[in-house]
C-alpha cells in the first residue's frame, strides 16, 4: 500500500504525516509513506486544499486534519 501525504509544510501537514506514521507503526501494516511537499507535484495530483492524503492514488483526505481513529479506519480500509 502506498500512502502519499500532500502539504507545503504547514503545521497541519506535518501533524498528518506524524499521525499516519504512528498508525502504520502500531498496526505494523506494510505501507510506504511518501511526503509530497513540492507545490508543483501537489497541484499536479489535483490537490487544492492541504493537508491531503491519498492511498494507492485515491484521495481520501482533503483540507482537514483527520483524527487518529479516522486514519486507522482509512488505512484499514
Amino acid at each position, binding site marked *: 500500500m502506498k500512502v502519499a501525504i500532500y502539504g507545503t509544510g504547514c503545521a497541519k*501537514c506535518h501533524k498528518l504525516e506524524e499521525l499516519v506514521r504512528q498508525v502504520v507503526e502500531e498496526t505494523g501494516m506494510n505501507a510506504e509513506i511518501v511526503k509530497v511537499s513540492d*507545490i508543483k507535484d501537489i497541484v499536479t495530483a489535483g490537490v*487544492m*486544499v492541504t493537508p491531503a492524503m491519498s492511498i494507492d492514488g485515491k484521495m481520501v483526505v482533503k483540507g482537514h486534519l483527520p483524527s487518529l481513529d479516522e486514519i486507522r479506519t482509512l488505512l484499514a480500509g
Partner: protein
Amino acid sequence: MIITNEDDAPAVAGTAPAARGGIRRAILLTLLILIALALWVLIYSRLSWFAEWYTYDKLLYPRPTDGNPAMLKQCCPTDAMLAEQGTTYVRQGRGIVFLLFQLPHTFMLLSLVVFLMGIVRSFFTPERTRGLLAGRRGSLIIALGAALGVLTPFCSCSALPLFIGFITAGVPLGATFAFLASAPLVNEFALFMLFEQYGLTIAAIYLAIGLTIAVLTGWLISRLRMERFLEDWVRQAAVDQQEAPAERITWEGRIYAGLHAAREIIGRVWIYILIGIIIGAFIHCYVTQQQIVALLGAKNWWSVPLATVVGVPIYSNPAGILPVMEALRGKGIPQGTLLAFMMGVIALSLPEFLILRRVMKPRLILLFFGIVAAGILIVGYAFNLIVK
C-alpha cells in the same frame, strides 16, 4: 432541514435501522446545540455587567464618575495625592474592566462565529466553488468569485494550490484573484465583531468595501491580461482533474464540521487573542489620550497610511486585533484609522507575499498588493469622514 426528511435517511448511514439511529442522534445533537446557544446568549449578555460589578464592587476600584469612593480614601488621604493617584486608579480600573470583559467576550464570540461559519462553509467546498467559476467569462463571474471567497473555507497555506487548481481548471485569472483577495479582505469574524460593537451600517460598509476591492482587483487583473505574468510552469501544469466522489454530508456532519472548526481555530489563535487583550489593557492603563491622539488622531492626514503600514509586519488574527482596536477607540482614535490598521494586519501580510511569489512574477504581485493597499487607504479616509 435534513433531519426530518425520511427520504434522506438511507444516505445518513448504510442501512435503514442505522439511519434511523442517525436521525435520532442528529436531533439530539441539534437540541444540545440549541441549549448551548441559549446558555451562550444568557452568559454573553451578562459579561459587561459582571466585569463592572467585579471591578468596582468587589475590587473597589473607583468608578470614572465617582467623587470620593472607599478605595480613594484609603490610598490617597490628601487632595494632592488624590489628584495624582486617583486618576491612575481610575485608569487601572478601566483596564481591569476591559480585561474581564474582553477575555470571555472575544472567546465566546469567536467560538460562535467560527462554529456558525463552519456549518455554512460545509455547503461550499473548493471543488464546488471551482465548478461554479470554471469556464466562464465576464464581470459577473468576478463578482461571484469575490463572494465565494468569503464563503469557501481554506487556510492561507492552501492559497497556492487553490490558486493553481483554479487557474488550471479554466477559472479566469480575474475571478481567481477576486476569490483569493476577498478572503482576507472580508474576514467573517471582523464582520461580526464590527456589527456587534459598531452597528449594522459600519459592518455593511466594511463588507461592501471589501468585496468592491476584491472585484476591482479581479477586474483590473483580467483587463490588463496579466496571465503572462504567471510563472511559466503554472500555465503548463497538467493537473489530474480526478474528482473525489461527491460526499453526502448529513446535518449531523455539518454540526460536527462547525464544532471541529471552532476547536481548531480557537486552538490556533488563542495566543493572539490573549496578546491582543493584554496590549489593549496596557493601552487602557498606561497610554494617555494626548499621546495617542497626537500620533493617530483625526487631525493628521497621515494617520491612515501610518496605521496601515504599522499593521503590515504585525501578523495576527482579527480576533487578536479587535481588542486592541477597541482600546484605541476608547482613546479617541477615529474609526477609519482603526479599520485601516486592522486591514493592514489581516489583508497585507508578508508571509502571503512570499507564498504568492512562487506562482506570480513580481509585477503581478506588486499590482495585487498595490490595489489592496489603495483600497485600505480609501476605507480609512472614507470612514474617518463618515463616522464622526
